[in-house]
């Protein structure tokens, strides 16, 4: 597990990252990371969804276009879905959406999907750290059309 310095990154830029976590695995994983007191950067806002397949591509597109710096979708490992097959759909959609976003000029790091189980608190903390670092390195999201970038540190 890595400890992340929230002050690191260019120009003190603090990205806003939206995390969708599936209720059954990833949210429990986040909980575990919390009760284990693992250190994580505080750039993420977590939204709990019943399944990673609940995350419509519209959510991601709108979030990125309205100025969030990154979107992370977390689900159960393939094969472990509480609803048997939800995350297989997420996998197909995620792949397509990532390619489409890249095509219109949005960096692939800004939209990521990861599988995190309920027991992987450490992986959750690590993923959050990794993604935050990647997005910090990219700088503010400028995909939106003439909109002001999200204010650093604004919550």
């Amino acid at each position: 597990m890595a400890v992340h310095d929230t002050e690191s990154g260019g120009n003190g830029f603090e990205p806003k990252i939206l995390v969708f976590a599936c209720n059954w695995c990833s949210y429990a994983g986040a909980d575990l990371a919390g009760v284990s007191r693992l250190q994580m950067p505080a750039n993420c806002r977590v939204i709990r969804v019943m399944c990673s397949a609940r995350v419509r591509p519209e959510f991601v597109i709108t979030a990125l276009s309205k100025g969030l710096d990154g979107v992370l979708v977390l689900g159960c490992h393939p094969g472990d879905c509480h609803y048997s097959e939800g995350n297989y759909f997420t996998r197909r959609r995620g792949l397509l959406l990532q390619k489409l976003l890249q095509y219109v000029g949005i960096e692939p790091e800004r939209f990521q999907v990861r599988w995190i189980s309920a027991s992987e608190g450490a992986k959750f903390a690590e993923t959050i750290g990794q993604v935050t670092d990647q997005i910090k390195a990219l700088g503010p999201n400028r995909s939106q059309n003439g909109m002001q970038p999200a204010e650093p540190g604004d919550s």
Partner: protein
Amino acid sequence: MQDKLREIVRKMLSDGDIEYFVGYCQGSEAHRIVPCFVTEESEVEKLVWGPLCLQNLSKYVLRTRDLDGKVGVLVKGCDARALVELIKQHQLERDDFVVVGVACEGQVDPRKLERELGVPLEQVGGIEDGGDEFLVHVGEETRKVAKEAVLRDKCFFCKHPPSFDCDYTVGEPEPFTIESDRSEFAGVEELEELPLEERRAFWRKQFERCIRCNACREVCYACYCTECLFDRNVPRWLDRPPLLEENEIYHLIRAVHLAGRCIDCGECERVCPVGIPLSRLYKKVQKDIAELFDYQAGMELETVPPLVNFDLDDQDPFL
């Protein structure tokens, strides 16, 4: 061919097989062919067929779902793909409509034609098919225009659904072929090779021009939702006034909604009043779906659409 078509429609109407027929008729100017609805035998003479019958009429079959009686529709091979998808997506039952397939020798792109002729389209008095070329009547003279120069982009890659049976055919509908060195996804690949920044700049410039007239949505065969999510109040995806900064959301959401369903009929791009190259956006998704999931929309009735399906061995970059 026109006569054969009229004969078939007249017979269907008089036998009571259909109540309505959706076909093409002459519009306000010679170069404008518009969709028309024939309900009486006396109206059959209105029907026309030619290289300017551009619209995808399957959209109108959807609109007649709630009417009593069967509807007949004239389809080109490419439009039949829309019907295949609509049946697959449970929007239509095959028995609810009568299909008249027509042999198509390529359709003219009016924008290309205008450029090629160098005269306004208003002066065009009619177009006939002449094998490798189109015979265009301009004023007194007849000008020969090579098909290669004025065909719609999609006609270079004509695909018919192989297993779809028409009830009647006019001529022998076969996929149209033309010799050319174009590749189907050239426009997409060209953009893919650009650096990210340039791609962003390219699309931003395109989306900035959008006036949100919704023409692309209205003309799209796949947009059959009774209430479009863009028109909803709860949740409100887009602000009521067409804000510039939301154009990107509009177009990207449309692109993902059409994923696996877009048959590249090219209608969106044709009706776009500001000329946004929408096919280049939707074709990207088509290309990815073909590469990743080996699927092509509108070709077979039996295959499962890619996004309501999965394979345990799908590519997984998310571990």
